[in-house]
């Protein structure tokens, strides 16, 4: 809501960021284990390959990409956990890997698959530890706790042992613990993984609310497309360590899927041929039909259909985002397969 710093420099600046790992490989089975125990076969993996982008204060950006694309590696370099092999990173003006106190007090990293809460104690005890570590004054702590309890509905779960909480309850507490110090930059790595739909929505709403209240900058990675589409206008698609798309979600949809679906409910039967006249018939079931039409002609063709066909009801939809992203990856994967193996094999030798 209220934010005073309208500085012009982006909060996050990344130029030609690169991370190369050395990993060892093992053939399956005991024989492979023995061979690997004696002599490790080293392979270089370029997890993040010279990516560049900037993010302004208050923006929420979604990182999309298949597993192993380099999203988490990129996030961890931004959070200062991993030292980049090469390239330039600034977060709020700081070099993340130096892990200065002012930097660490301004960021947080939430990992849906890992937990920082003390397992054997109620979440409140973990919160107290964080309060001391982040030097949060008592009144601020109380105020934050009140807000969080209200939005996340923490009432009644804070005093239970963490190990006795459900996954959803635990995730809510994890989020609260990670945001207790009111960081301005949030790195959320799969924060809703494994949660049911209701809980996903609740977490999403909380992140949106937090962003509004504190003008926080958010980078979100998620397997659930709904998380990303609900929160982020801007999308960065990473595949094989490269950025393959950076821009508006709507532009992504336009680029990857230049059509819209006109969903018709007919009042009487019409032949497939007649429907195909307007566009590509993508599904047909009795009186229900989906017709894919070029984006820029949507309204004209929809109007004609309404006028010329016995239409009971009509809706116009963007194709589902999952499909769009899937098409995008399918495209880049084909290119990547052509380009990568030569280098990878060399590295393996």
């Amino acid at each position, binding site marked *: 809501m209220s934010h005073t710093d309208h500085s012009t420099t982006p909060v996050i600046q990344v130029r030609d960021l690169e991370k190369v790992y050395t990993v060892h490989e093992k053939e399956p089975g005991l024989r492979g284990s023995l061979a690997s125990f004696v002599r490790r076969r080293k392979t270089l993996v370029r997890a993040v390959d010279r990516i560049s982008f900037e993010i302004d204060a208050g923006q929420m950006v979604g990182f999309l990409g298949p597993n192993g694309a380099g999203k988490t590696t990129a996030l961890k370099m931004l*959070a200062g956990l991993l030292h980049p092999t090469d390239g330039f990173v600034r977060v709020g003006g700081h070099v993340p890997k130096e892990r200065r106190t002012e930097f660490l007090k301004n960021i*947080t990293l939430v*990992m849906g698959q890992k937990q920082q809460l*003390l397992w*054997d*104690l109620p979440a409140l005890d973990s919160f107290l530890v964080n309060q*001391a570590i982040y030097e949060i004054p008592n009144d601020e702590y109380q105020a934050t706790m009140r807000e969080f309890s209200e939005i996340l509905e923490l009432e009644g779960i804070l005093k239970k042992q963490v190990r006795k909480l459900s996954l959803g309850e635990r995730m809510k507490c994890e989020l609260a613990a990670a945001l207790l110090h009111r960081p301005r930059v949030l790195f959320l790595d799969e924060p809703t993984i494994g949660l049911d739909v209701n809980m996903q929505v609740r977490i999403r709403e909380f992140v949106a609310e937090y962003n509004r209240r504190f003008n926080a900058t958010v980078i979100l990675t998620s397997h659930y497309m709904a998380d990303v589409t609900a929160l982020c206008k801007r999308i960065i698609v990473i595949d094989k360590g490269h950025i393959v798309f950076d821009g508006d979600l709507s532009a992504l949809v336009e680029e990857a899927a230049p059509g819209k679906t006109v969903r018709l409910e007919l009042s009487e039967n019409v032949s497939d041929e007649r429907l195909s006249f307007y566009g590509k018939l993508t599904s047909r079931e009795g009186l229900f039909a989906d017709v894919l039409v070029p984006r820029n002609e949507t309204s004209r063709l929809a109007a004609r259909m309404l006028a010329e066909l016995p239409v009971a009801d009509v809706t116009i939809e963007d194709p589902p985002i999952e499909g769009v992203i899937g098409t995008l990856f399918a495209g880049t994967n084909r290119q990547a397969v052509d380009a990568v193996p030569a280098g990878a094999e060399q590295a393996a030798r």
Partner: protein
Amino acid sequence: MRLKRYIRVLGIFVRASISAQLEYRVNFAVNLFGSLLLAGGTLLGITILYSDGTPLGGWSYRESIVVVGLFTLVQGYIGAFLYPNLNKIGEEVRQGTMDFNLLKPVDAQFLISSRNINVFRLTDALVGAGLVIWAASGLENASSIGALLGLCLIVTALTIVYAVWFMLSMTAFWFVKVGNVTELFNGFFRAGAFPVSALPGWVRLVFTFLIPVAFVTTVPAEAIIGRWNAGSVLGSGVAAVLLLGVSRWFWTYAISKYTSASS
């Protein structure tokens, strides 16, 4: 100000550790019983060893008890502070929860060295301290200066043990599973139950320079029983500062090579 904050955080860790251990009431009782049993066993062992009153390697019964007391004290220290923290480093690196320590705005080495305290093992340390005091009080050459010097040397000894143990645990950043490495240290450290200066020359050299066990128990014991020499006292201080410095450097290097665990 900075120090005050660290003490505050440490206080919270101690309280959280005690709370966590109190959650399991049976374990609490078993642990306490175990500590008493261990202390009793140690006492019994010494009594049997010296039952005929013959000095071993120039160390009298009471003088040796000072060493055994110090050994028990250091074991309590390891059990209470080092083991519950440093031996988790490997597991945390393996599972990637080390990330959370590195994200906190306090020194991460401090954090991973102090989060968990096994308060029950402190009973070992108390029994050890009691043994030292009891044994030393019956010795003619024991003096208040010697006791003070001994106290300083105990501090350097604990520093040395911490630095060595920390460095061994730190190899987890590369090898991930290092439980066996600290067991190795434990094995060598058992030699600390005996006065190193009572051992043959070459063994003495190994336990002084290669594995600094001598500095952990024998050197402080010599001060307490009034038999110190400037060389060992100075050596102990230098070893502590040096090892702590190297462990700090090693830590900085290890986190620069940290690869985390992918999620």
